[in-house]
């Protein structure tokens, strides 16, 4: 052979592969075109942090208005827009993208995969999000104003809003597409890219909880997409899916919405369970108690989440058998959830515990999520729910689940994995201060809502009776305290990214799992070739 003999059997480029071989591209375009799971994870996390402050600013507008009775600062229509957008931003723009960001960063590292299964799809699923939220938030500047009918978009109220309605539906579709693409990517990655020896029951709890969450998303997003499209056609194309005048049924929208909406609640909390199940064993220096039961409990919660939706609708009226079914099925959720709380406590029991910032947030999660869970149990009781419905007691319940619940888990995760991401330790003293200040103010903010709710203060109203004034004033002080204390969180993150004490590969003394076997910061490409998982390898 005197020259190279090249035969192309197909038009494929043999040098082609889906992610950057030589590390990140220089400049800003790195972030636009990246297909690396760590870059995309970082983008998701920064995006959700920015949205956290946008959604938080909306919450402060709400709380400022409620500082005193009477109309003080904003007009009622704008107040309603704030309550609606605050919810949409916090759910779809903060908690969900943050968990997807963590999934992007950690799942490939935890299971020993080189990247996500579909890196380009991953890029798309992120970059759809900012545009979706630009469209959503732009409605605030339109003549007809932003959406003001609540995040639940109940007809006929929501159909009475102006032409910005179409933009809201369009944005929701984009968010749904992004979520579905992210979920499919996670399912494809977990099923197809585990190394030999990484069996399902060796996967870390965070991976398990995300796998189940992805199933929930795949099952429910088409239902939500169908529901909002039917709203759109009712508004613009003369259909009557939810219009009683045309033979439709507005209550049917509530059924279809909550068939999506209740699993959505678990989409917001299951990955949090996974995070806490990673952190507590590390700082208790013990294996997670009852790993198998944790997996089965997560799957049980996911299953039950599909058959409890009508507990959001007890006041619409339903047959007694329906009320009983939904009451008891809702109560049943407390059984697997109780298993989880028990296992976390049992993991800590007689552990060699230390209380670094991630552990503080994780313990805060366990305690305050349980408070939110208990008020949820009260709301499951049909006759009691009819009294509590649409009061601030409900607001207190879901905020305890979502703020010291989901948001605390995100903060715990950030402190826990930040040294792995950046290669630098964060400022522990400031981290602990952040925890204690946040915990004091979050309780000052949300606990009084139980009292005003039980006393009958309705939610989503900018004005209230004088007897609720004191507790509202206290809640508003808590809101501003909690809101501004989050600036500390940003400062700690930025300081850590810019430098600090160098982190080791293991970072935490009791850390277990594959992600701690790679250096800090984690290399741009982690496990291009599958690591060997022996039966004795600790992966969770």
């Amino acid at each position, binding site marked *: *052979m*005197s*020259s*190279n*003999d*090249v*035969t192309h*059997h*197909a038009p*494929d480029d*043999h*040098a082609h*592969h*889906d992610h950057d*071989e*030589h*590390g*990140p591209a220089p400049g800003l375009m790195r972030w636009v075109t990246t297909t690396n799971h760590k870059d995309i994870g970082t983008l998701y996390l920064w995006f959700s942090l920015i949205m956290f402050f946008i959604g938080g600013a909306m919450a402060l507008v709400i709380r400022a208005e409620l500082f005193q009775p009477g109309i003080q600062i904003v007009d009622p229509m704008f107040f309603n827009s704030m309550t609606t957008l605050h919810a949409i931003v916090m759910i779809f723009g903060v908690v969900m993208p943050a968990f997807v960001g963590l999934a992007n960063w950690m799942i490939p590292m935890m299971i020993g*995969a*080189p990247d996500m*299964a*579909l890196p380009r*799809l991953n890029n798309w699923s992120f970059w759809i999000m900012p545009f979706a939220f630009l469209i959503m938030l732009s409605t605030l500047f339109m003549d007809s104003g932003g959406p003001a009918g609540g995040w639940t978009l109940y007809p006929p109220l929501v159909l009475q809003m102006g032409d910005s309605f179409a933009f809201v539906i369009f944005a929701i579709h984009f968010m749904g597409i992004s979520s*579905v693409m992210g979920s*499919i*990517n996670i*399912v*494809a990655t977990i*099923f*197809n*890219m*585990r*190394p*030999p020896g990484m069996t399902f029951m060796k996967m870390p709890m965070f991976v398990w909880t995300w796998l189940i969450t992805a*199933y929930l998303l*795949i*099952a*429910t*997003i*088409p*239902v939500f997409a*169908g*529901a909002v*499209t*039917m709203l759109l*056609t009712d508004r613009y194309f003369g259909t009557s*899916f939810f219009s009683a005048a045309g033979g439709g049924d507005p209550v*049917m929208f509530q*059924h*279809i919405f909550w*068939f999506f909406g209740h699993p959505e609640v678990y989409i917001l909390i299951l990955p949090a369970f996974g995070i806490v199940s990673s952190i507590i064993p590390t700082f208790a220096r013990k294996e997670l108690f009852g790993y198998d039961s944790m997996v089965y409990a997560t799957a049980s919660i996911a299953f039950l989440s599909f058959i409890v939706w009508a507990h959001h609708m007890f006041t619409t009226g339903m047959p007694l058998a329906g009320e009983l079914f939904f009451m008891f099925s809702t109560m049943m959720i407390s059984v697997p959830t109780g298993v989880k709380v028990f296992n976390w406590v049992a993991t800590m029991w007689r552990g060699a515990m230390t209380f670094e910032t991630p552990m503080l947030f994780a313990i805060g999660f366990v305690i305050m999520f349980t408070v939110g869970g208990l008020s949820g149990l009260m709301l499951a009781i049909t006759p009691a729910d009819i009294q509590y419905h649409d009061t601030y007691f409900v607001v207190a319940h879901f905020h305890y689940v979502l703020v010291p619940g989901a948001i605390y888990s995100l903060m715990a995760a950030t402190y826990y994995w930040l040294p792995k991401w950046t290669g630098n330790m964060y400022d522990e003293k400031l981290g602990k201060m952040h925890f204690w200040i946040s915990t004091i103010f979050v309780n000052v903010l949300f606990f009084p809502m139980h009292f005003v709710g039980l006393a009958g203060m309705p939610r989503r109203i900018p004005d209230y009776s004088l007897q609720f004034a004191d507790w509202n004033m206290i809640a508003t002080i808590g809101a501003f305290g909690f809101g501004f204390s989050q600036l500390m969180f940003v400062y700690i993150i930025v300081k850590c990214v810019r430098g600090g004490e160098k982190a080791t590969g293991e970072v935490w003394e009791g850390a277990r799992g594959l992600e701690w076997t790679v*250096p800090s910061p984690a*290399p*741009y*490409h*982690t*496990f*291009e*070739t*599958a690591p060997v998982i022996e039966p004795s390898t600790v992966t969770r």
Partner: protein
Amino acid sequence: MIEVQEENGKTTRLIVKANQSMSWRANLYLAASLGVICMGVAIAMATFGLWMVIPFAGAEIILIVVCLYLTLKRLSRKEVITLNNEAIRLEWGYNQPDVTVNLPRRFSRLSYSCPENIFEVGDLSVSAHGKRYALGSSLNREEKKELYTELQNALGDRA
């Protein structure tokens, strides 16, 4: 993953491929189970007159199937390096080679650069007559080093 095969002490074959933890058939069952869940919910909704869920569920099922197919296709791609006394044969493909390159053994040169920057995985390539072919594109730093060592050993044995 790197698999090394020896044939009669004369030929060495290195098969480089990404790890794949689930078979095509198992993926088919996975897609079917997701499809049954999605379409089951959509059909249940349709019986109550909410038929507009069906097209979204259908689109999602199509996306699931396409994504799983693309994942498996990518993971099935192999790079086969066959070395003997005379030649180095490079093949890339799925079930059969899509691209084959034959290089003269005597005029081929193996090169590897391992950068100090942790963010870079390094370049491993074989070149002959002014043309360069990247090897181990699905491998990371450590595995590229391993492939380089394997190739060096195999080439050294026949030098």
